[in-house]
């Protein structure tokens, strides 16, 4: 049976297994979600938004879902993928299920960090107020996620609160006997003037195929500040479709940084919407690919109100048979005067077999705006390489230095030193150079 039919057919049974434990409103949402998925199916390359990225390979496989997976895991296996040397709150999910013993949650007056399922049981009012209201319900992958999602991170920051530590969300897939499909769902609420920083990572430990369909909803209140970092350094049998939706209030700041190093197929849908004026959105990404990995960054920034700013900086270095896609869309609606939208996409192709497809889009309906995008595809500057070689730096190091400098811009918004160091080291390792920056 095709995966799509299997997902549609299994829904009823899944619903029955939950009956009694969930409210009617959540139940209704699930049913609506599966309806959307039933109508649209998995996106295909005929769909303009998926023109360059085919899910065919991923959806042809057979995945187990709903089955009981082994939950045993050693804490050493988990620690390797966490940002270490820093005190943090942790939410660890093993094969899609929250693992309390490996996690470090908190429930304080000012904020709490917990599993979505627990949060739902204790805070149904808050949950109902936000859950499913930020994500675009009309998308088939979101519909599918809404239908099946049960576990994920729930972070709530109350008005004026500042979360004192980094929050790390880690999804580990460890079952070595079966292919797995996951529906991860995160809900992050920062109320007015709240501040929080989050690191998210998906990681497979076995060679079995894993297909993760993740949806994250982030609500940023007035004058709040949310930073969300994503590290995508999974193995070659893991695919990820990540849809993140951010809704920003007046004078708020939101940042989503994405660092991609591997994975079979990674699709990042990033959707920003402004509901209040003077809000600021930042999107930065580094993509360093090898092998036959494919990464597709899709951003959509919706300037619906005046005086907001958005900045996008996407840098990509593609080697071997890897493929990169960038589609950045900035929409400035009629009344969104004084909008400032900037988008930059720079790419380096290192191999004859690598390719890049990029489509920076601007759709502008207001006249008093400053919107621009720039996009380049090229190679390292021969003269700069020659200059460095003439001063005794070997070609390989010279190249790595230049590439590091090329990608380095995107690290500027990271304010946690430990996290920055770890990411710098990851970039350096990918570029195979000892930068001796420590």
């Amino acid at each position, binding site marked *: 049976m095709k995966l799509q039919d299997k997902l549609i057919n299994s829904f009823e049974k899944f619903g029955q297994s939950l009956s009694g434990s969930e409210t009617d409103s959540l139940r209704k949402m699930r049913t609506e979600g599966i309806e959307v998925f039933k109508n649209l199916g998995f996106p295909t390359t005929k769909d303009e938004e998926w023109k360059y990225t085919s899910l065919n390979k991923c959806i042809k496989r057979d995945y187990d879902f709903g089955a009981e997976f082994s939950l045993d895991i050693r804490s050493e296996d988990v620690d390797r993928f966490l940002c270490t040397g820093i005190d943090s709150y942790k939410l660890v999910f093993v094969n899609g299920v929250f693992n309390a013993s490996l996690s470090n949650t908190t429930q304080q007056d000012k904020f709490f960090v917990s599993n979505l399922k627990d949060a739902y049981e204790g805070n149904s009012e808050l949950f109902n107020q936000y859950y499913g209201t930020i994500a675009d319900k009309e998308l088939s992958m979101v519909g599918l996620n809404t239908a099946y999602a049960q576990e994920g991170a729930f972070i709530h920051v109350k008005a004026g609160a500042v979360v004192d530590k980094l929050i790390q969300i880690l999804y580990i897939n460890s079952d070595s006997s079966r292919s797995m499909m996951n529906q991860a769902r995160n809900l992050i609420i920062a109320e007015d003037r709240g501040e929080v920083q989050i690191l998210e990572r998906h990681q497979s430990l076995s060679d079995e195929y894993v297909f993760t369909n993740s949806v994250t909803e982030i609500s940023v209140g007035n004058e709040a500040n949310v930073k969300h970092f994503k590290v995508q350094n999974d193995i070659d049998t893991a695919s990820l479709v990540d849809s993140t939706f951010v809704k920003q209030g007046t004078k708020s700041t939101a940042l989503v940084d994405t660092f991609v190093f591997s994975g079979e197929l990674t699709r990042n849908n990033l959707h920003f919407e402004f509901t209040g004026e003077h809000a600021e959105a930042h999107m930065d990404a580094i993509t360093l690919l090898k092998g036959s990995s494919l990464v597709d960054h899709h951003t959509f920034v919706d300037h619906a109100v005046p005086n907001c700013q958005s900045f996008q900086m996407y840098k990509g270095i593609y080697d071997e048979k890897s493929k990169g896609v960038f589609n950045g869309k900035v929409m400035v609606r009629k009344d969104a005067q004084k909008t400032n939208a900037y988008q930059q996409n720079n790419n380096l*192709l290192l191999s004859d077999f690598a390719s*890049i497809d990029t489509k920076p889009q*601007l*759709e*502008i309906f*207001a006249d008093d*705006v400053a919107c*621009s*995008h720039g996009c380049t595809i*090229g190679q390292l500057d021969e003269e700069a390489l020659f200059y460095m070689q003439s001063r005794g730096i070997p070609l390989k190091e010279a190249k790595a230095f230049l590439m590091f400098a090329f990608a380095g811009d995107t690290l500027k918004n990271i304010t946690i030193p430990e996290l920055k160091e770890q990411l710098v080291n990851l970039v350096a390792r990918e570029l195979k150079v000892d930068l001796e920056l420590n």
Partner: protein
Amino acid sequence: MTEEDKLLEEVTSAEYKYGFVTDIESDTIKNGLNEDVIRLISSKKNEPEWLLEWRLEGLKKFQQLVEPEWANVHYKKPDLQSISYYSAPKAKKTLNSLDEVDPELLKTFEKLGISLDEQKMLTGVAVDIIVDSVSVATSFKEKLGELGIIFCSISEAIQEHPELVRKYLGTVVPQSDNYYAALNSAVFTDGSFCYIPKGTRCPMELSTYFRINQAGTGQFERTLLIADKGSYVSYLEGCTAPSRDENQLHAAVVELIAMDEAEIKYSTVQNWYPGNKEGVGGVFNFVTKRGICHESAKISWTQVETGSAVTWKYPSCILKGDNSIGEFFSVAVTNNFQQADTGTKMIHIGKNTKSTIISKGIAAGESNSSYRGLVKIMKGAENARNFSQCDSLLMGDKSGSHTFPYIEVKNKTARIEHEATTSKIGEDQLFYCNQRGISTDAAIGLIVNGYCKDVLNQLPMEFAVEAQKLLSLSLEGSVG
């Protein structure tokens, strides 16, 4: 009301100045599209069998295709069965001098400011005039004939140079290329044909004026331009249409072939009727233009688009030969309810191929202007180079500007640069001009002309003057 608002008011209230109907008796066939109509067109034009076959093939392809909907334009689809596919003025059979041309027609051209006499005497431009699909006057033909240059209507070329037409027709834009190209292949009635022999530099600018005249007729011209090895030609195309309330369809196909080391410069000034202030009427301009460059050849498209209710046009270059060059320079002005979705495709296949794209969009009133372009670097295109710049200027807060650039790169040696900006005329710029005694009116003119300069500079002198006039007509009151 501020000065600027007043100007915008004037801009948005500018009426189309070329709206008049020439009273010439026309020979029009019954509305509708089917095999019989195509056989009738073919027999009326006394065409050879192979061309009829080719047309029928086009009709077959057309019937398999559906009207494209991906463009960022919204309009009521034209009913292709209610169009007459052939309309020819009943002109005298042979014309040796201008005296023999219908005086009514000559008046039309005078109103357009392109009186043949004046053109002949003052500018030395050879003009091949097409009124409702049939070429009625050709000048300077003999002079060009001495150099071996063939410049005539495509119907004439079919009769007199069938081997050339047969060899190249449909090689750049095949019948099955797209919906409107297939339609054109089936029903084209006339157009221009040009052949420049090896090593010849065409001594004058070749020029064609198109007019849609008969009410309810669509125009389906087919232009075929072949520049043989090492030759050079500059070709001008200008279009106007009288005011009509119903939307008229214009689905032309232009094919350019630049052989090794040849250079073609193709300039268009388009001001088909854009519809009135309420957005009623106007021409649908669905044109397929494409050129192929062989080794070291160069094709340069320049267009100034000020007219049409809906424009859907992507002049493209296939850079097949090594070291070939493609260029695209465009100014698209939309006003009132006009919609334009225009841009280019640069397909790099050969090594060391280069392309440049400069696109300037100006949207005023409640119009929408889109740039849609593709830069594709194929695997074997070593050292390909592209530079693209698309700028948009918005006038008034009811207009919209969109950019949809597609960049696909499959070779690591490619160097691609793309940049786009959207802005309005800065208050500080206007203030600066005012401060130096330049009225707001003149200042806007200066700024818009400066903004479009990169493109206007590419036009041949005769056309640059006309293009500036057209810019002023379209944005009347805001361009000095």
